[in-house]
């Protein structure tokens, strides 16, 4: 292992909560016995968040700093807890999608898809082929939009403001398309057990074709603006290294896992919807640093564009909604279904008792596991490094807190 620090028993957690006593400021001159004046320093405990510009939501980090270096750190979450898992037990299967959207609010389609797949598995429903293709297409549009948000905030974390606005410009087009199809920009409720709500509209298709004409050039521009910048590379290379062992031990999935050298992608290894009919590559990097994660995500965006093109050209004819009872009552049973969300493996473990609402719905948040790793990574980093390292892990607090 390149990093000799103990990955599991990292130097511990800060006890309980923020100290109520005022923290003494550092640098106190004391006189040691030998008579030589020596500068004694004390560690400084700071509260990063929940309202900090670069914690990507309401994450609170308790950091103990020695100068600019982090000695210990603890992540405090739960500020966005809405009890999605509990609420799902009181809703019909069709209505759980609205809750799932509010989990990882940056990639709603994939959350809904995970739930729909689990419900279909436990209810043994066939989905029309066109619906599967539409699910893949919308998933990839949403993945591209979500990665663009990550790209922009990565730029913001590294101090470059422009990239965010360039990314948002492209994302706006994608959200327009999703809005055209589903009626909503972020809280879609588009994928339901049995299929999808709407077929793709002609206007959305036209918008998508115009978008695809420009996006390749824009992707080059994005790579050149951020990844090609020497300052950015200096900030990202060799920072926040996650080894393969660490990634497996902490349950990391998705692009973060692939950047550490383990090629596992739910789309390829546990194919769902119509992914077994698509051609795409899975980028893998072995360095495991922030720059590797950046490169993997950028390449994933290109692969998403490739899949969207395939969907657009090869969309099969047929119905977009399968035959499913209006009040869906799957037989009693249990099922686990996972999708590759932009943040990793998003799984839904569903327990049905034969009624019209789930008995238990477990939402596996990939970002929670990424945050665990982020917390363990903190000791020894500078504040600026911590900001980019956590940013490169790409978590959404809505998903962590559910």
């Amino acid at each position: 292992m390149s990093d000799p620090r103990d990955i599991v028993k990292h130097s511990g957690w800060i006890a309980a909560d923020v100290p109520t006593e005022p923290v003494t400021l550092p640098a106190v001159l004391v006189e040691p016995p030998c008579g030589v004046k020596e500068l004694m320093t004390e560690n400084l405990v700071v509260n990063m968040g929940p309202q900090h510009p670069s914690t990507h939501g309401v994450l609170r980090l308790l950091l103990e700093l020695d100068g600019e270096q982090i000695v210990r750190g603890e992540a405090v979450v739960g500020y966005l807890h809405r009890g999605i898992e509990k609420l799902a037990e009181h809703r019909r299967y069709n209505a759980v999608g609205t809750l799932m959207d509010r989990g990882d609010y940056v990639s709603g389609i994939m959350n809904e898809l995970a739930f729909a797949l689990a419900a279909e598995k436990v209810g043994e429903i066939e989905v029309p082929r066109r619906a599967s293709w539409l699910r893949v297409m919308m998933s990839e549009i949403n993945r591209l939009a979500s990665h663009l948000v990550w790209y922009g905030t990565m730029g913001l974390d590294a101090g470059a403001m422009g990239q965010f606005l360039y990314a948002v410009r492209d994302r706006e087009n994608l959200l327009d398309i999703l809005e055209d199809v589903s009626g909503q920009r972020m809280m879609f409720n588009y994928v339901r057990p049995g299929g999808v709500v709407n077929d793709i509209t002609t206007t959305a298709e036209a918008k998508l074709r115009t978008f695809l004409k420009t996006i390749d050039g824009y992707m080059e521009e994005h790579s050149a603006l951020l990844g090609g910048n020497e300052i950015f590379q200096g900030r990202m290379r060799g920072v926040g290294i996650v080894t393969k062992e660490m990634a497996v031990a902490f349950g990391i999935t998705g692009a973060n896992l692939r950047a550490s050298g383990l090629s596992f992608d739910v789309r390829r290894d546990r194919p769902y919807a119509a992914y077994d009919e698509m051609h795409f590559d899975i980028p893998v990097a072995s360095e495991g640093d922030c720059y590797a994660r950046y490169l993997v995500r950028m390449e994933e965006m290109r692969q998403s564009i490739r899949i969207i093109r395939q969907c657009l050209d090869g969309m099969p004819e047929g119905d977009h909604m399968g035959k499913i009872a209006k009040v869906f009552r799957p037989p009693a049973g249990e099922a686990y279904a996972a999708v590759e969300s932009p943040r990793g493996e998003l799984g839904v473990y569903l327990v049905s008792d034969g009624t019209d609402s789930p008995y238990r719905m477990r939402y596996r948040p990939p970002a929670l596991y990424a945050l665990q790793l982020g917390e363990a990574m903190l000791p020894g980093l500078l504040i600026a490094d911590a900001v980019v390292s956590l940013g490169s892990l790409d978590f959404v607090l809505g998903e962590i807190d559910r």
Partner: protein
Amino acid sequence: MQPDPTLIAKTLAEAGVEASFEEVRALGYVVRIAPESVRAAIGALKDCSRSFDFLVDLFGIDTGEAIDVVYHVRSFGDDAELHVKAEHAYDSVLTSVWDILPAALMAERECAEMFGLKLAGHPNPKHLLLTEGSQPLLRKSIEIRTAEEVRNR
């Protein structure tokens, strides 16, 4: 996808864990063990030849009589997945497996607070999502307001 049941039975038997197997429709293999042998079982599965060293998820299910804690583990070497279930009585102790699978750190905290279990052997046994002192939200006995109640409030 599906693990080799004989290998798992052998591994668990060698570790001295009593386990029963069932194949659940739409889910796959489920190994049911006693809560006392969770650490032994997870450790043995991690150390076996087809190392189940990746914790996909850890969560609880309130069955109405007890709390099933589910350890969903995956082996990248074998490309197999396994659900290990341990039935914990209400208000009993959930033994931490964080030193075997560090991924369990936060998931265990969440499971304990949501189902009112006590965490043992965890380095940071605070609540994760809920404020300290709140009710175990995901237990079936905890009621939430229904839509009618909210309307008539």
